[in-house]
């Protein structure tokens, strides 16, 4: 059995600074880390692998430095790391990213289960997982909150979708996206961490994938959506309005606030 985990290296969002004047994101002081939801995806894979003996491959698209996140995945227990890195991959939108990841998965060849985090903390679209499933033409289960049972042929999970919790059973091949509730990612064991520092990371660029996907479908060229403008919204200040001995006035104004925020629950 083979499990593929999709991983993205992201900036530590708690440390990313935002330069309002320039409308630019300053990542310089923020370290990088594995997208937190991807750690849940990796943990899910490792738990399944421990029982089934599955091989776990972590796949990431990113700059050469993203090699670090694949080493980290290996330190935590992945068997191998594959980095998709090429200047031509720059500027990829959801479609181009999903196309590239799908191509890499096809190059890996046989696989049973693909696991991805529900979304990344930087891009935040949550679309790449389901889109990869769409391209590979395999089913997907989104927002998996818990894994009830699994074998080498199938998996039973709880998916938080459609404003409810659905128990779903899927036979492989299958892609699933997981939430942070699915598990608590383990810390890397010290020995594995030291070993992973020296692990060999497989690197594929455009030419390694040319049999499977045409360059025109990757990077900027393969991205139909383009950011045309960045708007920096005015920083909102707290209203700081005080009502003293004027409760009815306050209540009316609150009603107005509720209306404007569309939170009045008309079903009640």
């Amino acid at each position: 059995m083979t499990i593929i985990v999709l991983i993205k290296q992201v900036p530590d969002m708690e440390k990313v600074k935002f330069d309002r004047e320039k409308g630019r994101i300053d990542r310089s002081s923020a370290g990088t880390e594995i997208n937190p939801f991807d750690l849940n995806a990796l943990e899910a894979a490792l738990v399944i692998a421990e029982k089934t003996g599955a091989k776990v491959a972590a796949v990431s698209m990113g700059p050469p430095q993203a090699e670090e996140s694949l080493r980290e995945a290996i330190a935590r227990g992945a068997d191998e790391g594959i980095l998709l890195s090429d200047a031509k991959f720059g500027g990829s939108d959801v479609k181009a990213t999903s196309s590239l990841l799908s191509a890499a998965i096809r190059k890996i060849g046989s696989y049973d289960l693909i696991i991805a985090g529900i979304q990344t903390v930087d891009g935040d679209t949550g679309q790449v997982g389901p889109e990869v499933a769409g391209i590979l033409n395999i089913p997907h289960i989104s927002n998996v909150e818990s894994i009830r049972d699994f074998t080498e042929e199938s998996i039973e999970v709880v998916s938080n979708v459609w404003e409810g919790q659905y128990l779903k059973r899927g036979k492989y091949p299958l892609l699933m996206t997981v939430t942070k509730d699915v598990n608590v990612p383990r810390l890397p064991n010290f020995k594995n961490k030291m070993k992973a520092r020296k692990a060999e990371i497989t690197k594929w660029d455009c030419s390694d994938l040319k049999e499977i996907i045409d360059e025109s479908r990757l990077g900027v060229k393969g991205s139909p959506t383009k950011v045309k403008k960045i708007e920096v919204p005015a920083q909102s200040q707290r209203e700081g309005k005080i009502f003293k001995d004027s409760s009815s006035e306050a209540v009316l104004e609150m009603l107005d606030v509720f209306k404007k925020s569309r939170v009045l629950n008309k079903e009640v």
Partner: protein
Amino acid sequence: MNENIIRKMQEIVGEDWVVADLEKVGSYCEDETEKAVKPKVCRDCVVVKPASAEEISEVMKYANENRLPVMARGGGTSLSGAAVAIMPTIIISLERMNKIIEVDETSLTVECEAGVTLLDIVELFSKHDSLYFPIHPGDEGAQVGGMIVMNAGGVRAVRYGVMRDQVKGLEAVLPTGEIIHAGGKLIKNNAGLDLKNLLIGSEGILGIVTKATLSIKPKDKHIGSLLVSFENDTDAVKAVTEIFKSGIKPLAIEYMEKTAILRAAEDIGMTWPSNIGNVDLYFIVSERKEDDLYEMYETIVGICEENNAVESFVAESSKEQKTLLDIRSHVYPSMQKMVVDAIDAAVPIRNLAKYMEGINKIHEKYGVEISTIGHIGDGNMHNSILTEDAEKPECYDQIVDEIFNLIIECEGAITGEHGVGKVRNERLKLQFTEKELSLMKAIKSVFDPNNILNPGTAL
């Protein structure tokens, strides 16, 4: 509380900033001290929330003239009764004085008002490229003023020391109403007697700190946490002494009994990464270069393994490291309901093994549960006497007597970081001579001739 006093307070700070309603006053009259040892709380108090040192000065002048007890209150996180009112008192809450005045990136200092919380400081530097406030004296609701007068220590004191080592200068209001300044951004300053260091750790009986200049440090680029598990305390303690011998100085070395740390994690819905062994050591290390950090990891884990460590983990992302620290910080709150008395012993690192052996003997002799966590890298151990309902066990007095004697035998201090407050006053004579104690009392009366500022505390 006398109406005239309330009216006078309203005159000084404004009507909105005086709380006299008994129900609201209650939470300002006490701190986090264990209920079995906490002195009896007096709620007949008035809470004043001044906006400046000048207003505090006015309050002090009035109180001094009228011989009224005053107590300054910060975050209320004290564990020694220092912020418990035991008589009708004017309680000065510094919560409104919460401005961060300046970060001086050349002198490496941050200047702030006394009501700034540890959380404010942590957040201020969390996004800073290269500087930070290196120590973490515990509950993040604690305020700078309180941390200074209690000389707080906490988790990360191994490399950079305690609060005393971070305070460069301060402003304080004396019990007689004068505002004084001590120290500054200087590195060398040899003029006169050092009033700053008298005020630090004075437990709020010499003056009310209103402003402080704290030292900040360059951030190492690479910071990591190691978690190493052992089967027993002897191995863990031995590993720590060996690590010090090898010349390594991590930011922190924490010692935790597994049951305590697992309870803390469960209580806040988090997961502690390791569940084998009975005792954990938790190291925070930092270096400028990644290779140096890894070398340090290897040395530490190497020494631990020589001392029979059973498992080691590494946390490097800031979130995972924060999870470890959050769980560690929650150990005390999670067992608070069971704690009769939390001993706050400080002993020289060399005597740690002897101290822990002694504690084990006391535990065996009396059959009372004693749970130990501690800032082991500072030789500061918290041995909590636990019972199901936090009522004093029968032989409580003998147990604590024996523990305090053990501390003195180990050349230690009766309190490492929590302070004497209103709970350890009787024990002072174990550590000090008559003469030493009378010097301290004389200093108090010079600052506070009418003994109005937090009477019954620290001495």
